[in-house]
């Protein structure tokens, strides 16, 4: 069976850097970008290895600011 693949899109400037998405990602691909400060003054959540995303939407379930869109293909 083909492995479920997904893609997450973060609206980085709306992220408050709380890290709840980081804590629930089963593939551990989300991190807070300590080299960036977004428009709100926080280190936003980013995904570097997007090809490992399975599109489970756990991150979106926990995001208090609803900045995440999840696609699956």
């Amino acid at each position, binding site marked *: 069976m083909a492995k479920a693949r997904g893609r997450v899109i973060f609206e980085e400037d709306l992220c408050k850097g709380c*890290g709840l998405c980081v804590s629930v990602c089963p593939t551990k691909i989300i991190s807070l970008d300590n080299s960036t400060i977004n428009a709100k003054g926080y280190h936003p959540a980013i995904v570097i290895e997007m090809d490992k995303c399975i599109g489970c939407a756990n991150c979106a379930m926990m995001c208090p600011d609803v900045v995440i869109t999840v696609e699956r293909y």
Partner: protein
Amino acid sequence: MTVVFEKTKGLTDVQTHYCPGCTHGIVHRLVGEALEELGVLDKAIGVAPVGCAVLAYNYFNCDMHEAAHGRAPAVATGIKRVRPENFVFTYQGDGDLASIGTAEIVHVAHRGEKISTIFINNAIYGMTGGQMAPTTLIGQKATTAPLGRDEAHSGKPIKMSELLATIDGAKFVERVTVTTPGHVRKAKKAIKECFKLQIEGKGFGIVEVLSTCPTNWGLTPEESLRWLEENMIPYYPLGSFKRPKEDD
């Protein structure tokens, strides 16, 4: 490619003022999704409380009303009686519902008003800076209980869901939390069922959501979720306390 998750139409594009990691945002989203999925967004009227969620009228994409502290159920009663065709809900915190507004919520349940209430219990007064609430746990520190809540002085934390479940007019009472994606999904299911009850005209429903307050608890957002699971859930057990009976 399919979009499996995107922001609900039940919320506006206004950025919330909540602290990072505050679970108010998650519950707002669940309420917005429930309103949208049940098709009542166009006729929903929400009543915002006093407390951290005082600005909720900016965030829900439906008509909203602001109430005096604790009086959201009374205001909602008026709205629902004048406009019974509308869907009316209140969104209240523990300082609002379990302290100054205890009389209103008890009597709205007692009268069996056909409204729905979302009750956010984070065991502390958030907006005013972390004072002890009626729901603060024994031993939990607050700015007005620097050594922790003392049972001999302040009594035990009030269990609103258990209390309201004893009232005949309350037809749906459930306590949920939002500490994991699984719990978030269960919370959404409870909120939708509670809202359906009103749509079917069956009476008063309330969903209590155990929530976090990272800022006033002095913990990180993730630590707060674990603290909630370890300390609040043992005292405030999750689950359904009341469902409508068949003859309701």
